[in-house]
């Protein structure tokens, strides 16, 4: 297991290196960080452009630029943005913001997926199964941004009208400036009110697909011989399903969730934009791609790739916990 982990890590580093090189090449070919100044009116003097090219290293050879970036990254320095702010300083707080959203969403989505999947399998072809199936397919089919917009328009509006006060919010992580004069419960309830809708919108989309996997895996397990044996030995139905069935049915879900984290990270880009959370997604779109900023795009890529790699490692470890046979081999 230990060597397996090491091998996996080394392979991941190699993948990161290759992908960063490819992205760097793509960005270097298509990004022009000076773009926004060409149409500025009056136009900045030529000395300004020369200075900026020099500071951003645009006059250097492509490989030199990549090497400079790479040697920085090894020491934890992701370089500076085109505006001269260190990228590293931005990545961490933004990862925290996105992480808060994603972790919450993953937990909710997994719990819901298991519950709904198990109910769907145990009560196959009953009314509840059909209802859940119907809901799941609707959610899978809905585009993320549209679903999020629906939540903002109807759920937020509806709940707030129902209670006659602002309980759910649609913009940002807290009411701006609130922390200047509020504290304790007022502040935390406000933050909770801001957190609910983005988390739901992220969770709902992953949950839908995951619950289908869970249902299929559960059906598979329910029909297996060891389940019948367990029943024959006199265990109650409920105990068989939860103790023997669920445990085995969780293994496929682990894989799906680990892979899904990458998707979720991408999905968070849209959710963040819709709910105006200033996280990783916005960093990629507004600060990276819109500003023609290579260092930002690469920083984002590395962080998100590490995120995905780590979750896949966790999944591997979880297999071992769930399935003792892996530990034996």
């Amino acid at each position, binding site marked *: 297991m230990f060597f397996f982990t090491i091998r996996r890590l080394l392979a991941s580093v190699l993948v990161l290196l290759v992908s960063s090189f490819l992205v760097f090449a793509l960005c270097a070919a298509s990004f022009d960080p000076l773009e926004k100044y060409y*149409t500025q009116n009056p136009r900045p003097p030529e000395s300004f452009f020369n200075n900026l090219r020099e500071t951003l290293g645009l006059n250097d050879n492509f490989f030199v630029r990549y090497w400079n970036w790479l040697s920085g990254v090894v020491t934890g320095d992701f370089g500076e943005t085109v*505006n001269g702010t260190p990228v590293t300083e931005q990545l961490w707080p933004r990862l925290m913001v996105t992480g808060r959203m994603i972790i919450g969403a993953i937990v909710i989505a997994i719990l819901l997926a298991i519950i709904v999947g198990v109910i769907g399998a145990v009560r196959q072809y009953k009314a509840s199964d059909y209802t859940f199936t119907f809901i799941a397919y609707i959610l899978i089919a809905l585009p993320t941004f549209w679903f999020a917009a629906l939540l903002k328009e109807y759920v937020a509006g509806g709940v707030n009208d129902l209670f006659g006060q602002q309980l759910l919010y649609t*913009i*940002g992580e807290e009411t701006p400036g609130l922390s200047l004069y509020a504290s304790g419960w007022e502040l935390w309830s406000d933050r909770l009110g801001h957190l609910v809708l983005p988390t739901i919108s992220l969770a709902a989309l992953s949950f839908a697909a995951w619950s289908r996997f869970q249902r299929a895996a559960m059906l598979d397990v329910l029909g297996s011989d060891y389940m019948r044996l367990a029943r024959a030995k006199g265990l109650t139905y409920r105990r068989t399903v939860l103790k023997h069935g669920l445990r085995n049915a969780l293994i496929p879900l682990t894989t799906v969730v680990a892979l899904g984290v990458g998707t979720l990270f991408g999905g968070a880009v849209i959710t963040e934009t819709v709910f105006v959370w200033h996280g990783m997604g916005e960093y990629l779109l*507004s600060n990276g791609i819109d500003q023609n900023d290579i260092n930002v795009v690469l920083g984002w890529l590395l962080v998100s790739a590490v995120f995905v790699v780590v979750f896949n490692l966790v999944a591997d470890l979880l297999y071992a916990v769930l399935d003792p046979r892996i530990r034996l081999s």
Partner: protein
Amino acid sequence: MKLSKRTSMLIATGLTGAMALSACGGGSEDEGGGEASGGSGRVVFGESTDFPENLYPNIAAGNATSVANVLIKVLPSAYHIQPDFTVEFNEDLFTGEPTLEEVDGQQVNTYEINPDAVWSDGTPISAADFEFTWRANRSGDPADGGCPAVLSTTGYEQIASVEPGEDDKTVVVTYETPFADWQGNFENLLPAHLMDADDPAAVCETITEGWPIAEGLPEGISGGPWQVSNIDAGQQVIVLTPNPEWWGDGPELEQLIIQNIGNDPTTAVQGLQSGELGVIYPQPQLDLVEQVQALEPNVESEINFGLTFEHLDLNTQDPHLADPLVRQALAYALDRQEIVDQTVGQFSSDAQVLNNRIWLNTQPEYEDTAPEQVKTQNVEEARALLEQAGYTAGPDGFYTHPERGPLNIQIDTTENNPLRQTTIEVMIPQLAEAGINASFNANPDIFAGAESPTSLEGGGFQAALFAWVGNPFITSSQSIYQSPQGDNIQQNYSRIGNPEIDALFAELATEPDRERQAELGNQIDGLLWEQMATIPLYQKPTFVAHQANIEGVQDNPTEAGPLWNSETWTVE
């Protein structure tokens, strides 16, 4: 009704919060000012442009609309641009209107600073601040004591000296050569006592580093009604509170909160609807305007026409468009009234066709200088011109030239801009009527550098639709219409010019008198119509919307923006 209840709840919580705050901070608020102290209420402004990385306005990193909005009532400016595009001197900063004289053939301006004017740390605002502001913007060349990080030296590079007059509260500015737009100088006065150093290299270092957003302004300095009191870079929120040393009127609010909301129109509308946002200033789009107008009477909104104008640029290095007859034919074939009706005319019945490139419709200096033929669609004349240029109509109705080939014109524009797409879609059938085969092309590289072959700068386009951001200070348009000097085209993407226009621009740049400026500008524009390399279309609208209970919000469709009078806002 439901909505108003919710809104009033929010306002109520905001008010109690504000009351709690003012109760806590009572001690420090009481001194000085008299009626000026103690505003109440909080307003959240939803900023739709990018959150800045730096607040120092004169370097690239701080050259953003969001920075301008923060600073407009924090750092003092000599002149303010009014909503009607006139410029007025800062009555709080000066005791009287700055004077313009000619002394020994040199332009001299004298500014009398208000004796009460102080920075928020108590240091008087003096001639030293003007002198330092000049030095900090004067040059981009280190050999000359300048700083390469300075984004623009326009206006300051022509100044010979900035000196105190009789005392420190009088400033005498002498120009080497007369400068037409002197009123645009000394915008964002810098605090010399916090930034100055004897060594130009040290000053340059200070400038290059600027004011990183996480640190805010040095010592939280302010010379205006607002002071930047709190910045949350993570959540992209900037909180402005009243400057305790402010000697003028206002602010009437306890806090003005600038929150970045991005440019997604849905967010802006829903934030306004739910009461989370007080004031928004998004780019107007048809859906957005309709949705906001549906929120009346809880929300009020206003459309104005700003200093940015859309135009079609024709590349005179294209084989077809090099021929003035073809350019003329193209202009004659367009029905610009219909273009306006189908685009900005949908937002506002005040939208007009723009017939001048130097002055815009809503400026007092504006004159309609357009020739009669471009005021309506003249298909017959357009066809005649093309035939005169040697084109013959093919069986499909489109013209072809024996050497230049079929008359296909591709119109480039920016990506993902519905308004521009509509503009071109309206143009295409109009041009087709005159036998010109036009097509639409969203060009992602349009504003890229010269290395990019399809960019404006690279010259690999035929016609391009984009906007110029104007300001009341007119010398900025010189770089657009000046004849190219070899490879250096500046911003003259059409790559055409003539000595007569150049001479008039040279005169305009050194003409401080507004009436003569108006005359010269209109004269230049008349000549530009003869070139027909730039076809102006319309002024772009601006859109401000706010909760009805916020009083005093008035759009300023210039670069001054919606916060230009924010110190007078009140909340009911």
